[in-house]
């Protein structure tokens, strides 16, 4: 029996009923980021967010679990900032490259979010898949 392959990248596409400049602002203005970033049950307090939105600029924020107050600090570096079309950043802690692009649909906006996960480069991944295979054998 073979396990499903380990997912290394994914793309999410959404169409928002809002003009592109508004969507761009939602991503790049800390006041706005605080309103939506994080899944249900997790908040990102405005006071924890700093953003220097330019190529090479960094951002930091802390997500907080609503139920138990657990803090999840996060951050990264902007690699590309092409207002209002494209935003690329790399996560600070985990090897995660995120590219978000925005297409103007005339009052509505198509957002595409592409996430690539790497962990120590391709060589490391090969070692990992071997290990996960062995692990799967050991566990099942």
């Amino acid at each position, binding site marked *: 029996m073979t396990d499903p392959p380990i997912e290394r990248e994914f793309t999410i596409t*959404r169409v928002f009923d809002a003009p592109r400049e508004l969507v761009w602002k939602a991503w790049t203005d800390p006041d706005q980021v605080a309103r*939506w970033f994080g899944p249900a049950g997790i908040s990102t307090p405005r006071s924890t967010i700093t953003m220097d939105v330019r190529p090479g600029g960094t951002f930091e924020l802390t997500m907080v679990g609503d139920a138990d107050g657990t803090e999840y600090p996060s951050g990264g570096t902007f690699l590309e900032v092409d207002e209002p079309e494209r935003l690329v950043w790399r996560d600070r802690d985990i090897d995660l490259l995120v590219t978000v692009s925005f297409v103007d649909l005339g009052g509505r906006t198509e957002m595409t979010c592409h996430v690539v996960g790497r*962990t120590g480069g391709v060589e490391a991944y090969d070692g990992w898949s*071997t*290990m996960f295979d*062995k*692990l799967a054998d050991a566990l099942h």
Partner: protein
Amino acid sequence: MPVDQLSSTFAALADPTRRAILERLADGEATVNELAQPFPVTVQAVSKHLKVLEHAGLVTRGRAAQWRPARLRGRPLEDAAGWLARYRQFFEASFDRLDDHLRAMQRRRDD
């Protein structure tokens, strides 16, 4: 899995000797001496690697003080294998909220 737990998992997996130790433990539990045998490193070094793996929750140690055989804990590794799927869930859920937020903004602008 919380982001910080993932970080410690990946930090633990970043080292080739530690990955090799985990592969060895996938075959069954082993003592520090047994683990050190195939590696060109000291027992002390393997002991240190084991502490990192233990701290990351990837390995448990037996209680017998002398031998303390190490054993693989599969769960964090399985979580690591599925970590990107977790991020997809994270982003999908965030974008649901972004959608709500943008609608609210639009309404405010239209007023």
